[in-house]
């Protein structure tokens, strides 16, 4: 028990969940065929907002996290007006540039404390542990492990809720509009779909969840500084998403979990770790260019175990 449920494993689970949310946020824009890489910027907005709100305004953490997401959405509304007109790599680089602008602002603003960052951000695990201390005492779990355990549970619930949300959305008229825009913008527009509206919608959702992921990160790391949200972060998120399979929602969680856990398993390889990581990416793309999960795989699973299949993969993704 101790071997599996120790703080280290729980920590990895926590980061996996945050990364799932982050890679889903990349996936959400890919859904409409937009490769937007501003997510590190939105993450940063969410993280700073939530940190400042809890530390300086004393807002309760859940409210602050949601507000972090909302703040990111608000920023996205402004940024989205010029950028969602762009296509392909132009959009990718412009949004990546937006992330850089946010980073430089965070480096220079007073409220973000520049490069020194914000420290002493309330920890989510501790807060949960304190809240449930009586209950944990009964179970004879110390409040720290308990707090972490609770945090994992909460995050898993959040992840499942987001997956459920997006899954339902994809099955609806809105999801069909997304898919149509991704397939052929022009034909979609002439089928009566207001493409700007839906592109913006997916962009805002993406920003919101990136903001939430950022806020969760802030309350996990307890310390944030602008370097945490550099463009590597979003490249990582893109890797998760494409690695797992960027054409299907379940790809993101799968990819995020694999690519979060794998480097931890490979720790002993020391400086060869990155080399192997690189080779693995090249190899996977050569053999499965659409990522691990693709339409066909899902369809096969679907056929073999109707209805169940999708949920199965979900669980795989969450673990």
């Amino acid at each position, binding site marked *: 028990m101790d071997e599996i449920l120790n703080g280290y494993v729980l920590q990895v689970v926590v980061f996996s969940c945050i990364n799932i949310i982050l890679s889903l946020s990349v996936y959400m824009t890919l859904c409409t065929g937009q490769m937007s890489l501003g997510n590190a910027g939105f993450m940063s907005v969410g993280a700073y907002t939530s940190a400042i709100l809890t530390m300086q305004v004393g807002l309760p953490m859940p409210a602050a996290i949601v507000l972090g997401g909302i703040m990111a959405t608000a920023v996205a509304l402004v940024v989205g007006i010029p950028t969602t007109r762009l296509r392909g790599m132009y959009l990718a680089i412009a949004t990546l540039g937006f992330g850089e602008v946010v980073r430089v602002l965070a480096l220079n603003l007073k409220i973000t404390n520049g490069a020194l960052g914000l420290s002493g951000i309330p920890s989510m695990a501790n807060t949960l542990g304190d809240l449930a201390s009586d209950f944990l005492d009964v179970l004879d779990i110390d409040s720290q492990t308990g707090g972490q355990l609770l945090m994992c549970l909460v995050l898993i619930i959040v992840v499942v809720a987001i997956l459920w949300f997006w899954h339902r959305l994809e099955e609806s008229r809105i999801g*069909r509009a997304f898919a149509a825009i991704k397939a052929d913008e022009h034909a979609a*527009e*002439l089928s009566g779909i207001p493409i700007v509206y839906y592109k913006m919608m997916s962009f805002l959702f993406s920003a919101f969840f990136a903001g939430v992921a950022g806020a969760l990160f802030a309350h996990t790391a307890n310390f944030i500084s602008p370097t945490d949200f550099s463009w590597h972060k979003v490249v990582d998120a893109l890797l998760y998403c494409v690695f797992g399979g960027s054409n299907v929602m379940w790809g993101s969680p799968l990819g995020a979990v694999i690519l979060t856990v794998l480097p931890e398993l490979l720790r002993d390889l020391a400086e060869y770790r990155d080399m192997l990581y690189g080779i693995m990416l090249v190899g996977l793309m050569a053999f499965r260019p659409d990522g691990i999960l693709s339409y066909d795989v899902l369809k096969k699973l679907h056929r073999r175990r109707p209805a169940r299949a999708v949920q199965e993969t979900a669980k795989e993704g969450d673990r």
Partner: protein
Amino acid sequence: MLLELQHVVKRFGGVTASSDISFSVEEGQIYGIIGPNGAGKTTLFNLITGVYQVSEGDILFQGTSIEGKKPHEITSLGIARTFQNIRLFPQMTVLENCLVGCHTQLHSGIWSSVFHTKGQRQEERKAQRQAMDFLKFVGLDQDADTIASSLPYGKQRKLEIARAMSTHPKLLLLDEPAAGMNDSETAALGTLIRGLRDTYHVSILLIEHDMNLMMDLCDRLVVINFGKKLAEGTPTEIQNNPAVIEAYLGKEDEE
């Protein structure tokens, strides 16, 4: 008057693709556009559906100007089209392609979509029923779950028509629907188009080079040449118009 083009001019840089085109389509009509290649027929479709903006002139739909409107707005007003080069959503199933066409008919927002409210479910079921209707009409109901890109060419054309019909148009624009079909298939398509008009009371604006089909199907025809209107009239008038024969039809080489 359902659709009215008033002195429409469209220029691309130096090229004038349409110059001073006027004609109008009445409700319930099958109206044909013919003309040599590059005459500016597809350009007219692009102008009507808002893909391009006119350089001069105006386009009225049901009496109001649709100039400056976005393509999706025009679609929701009731104009749908197919493309000269097929543009389906290749990875979606046949039914899904049609459901995309239903978009403007549906209204559920984010929350009702996520929580599958009763209204949303009813709406979805209705949309599916209607989409299946159209598929059945064009003869694709058996293929509803097939991925669109794996359909043979002829069926893809029909699916485009079904998708366009799913937007519940008052006016349907068909750009060379019979291209790549042989005579028998073309004849069947003619029956289908007439059936659409009769069953769904949709007016049709049709571009096609197959003269047998056009003469057979159209109530009225306009002939475009070098972006200008060359002639307009009933099929018989057009067929015997010497200018049209010279510019477009050519001398019949047989019989």
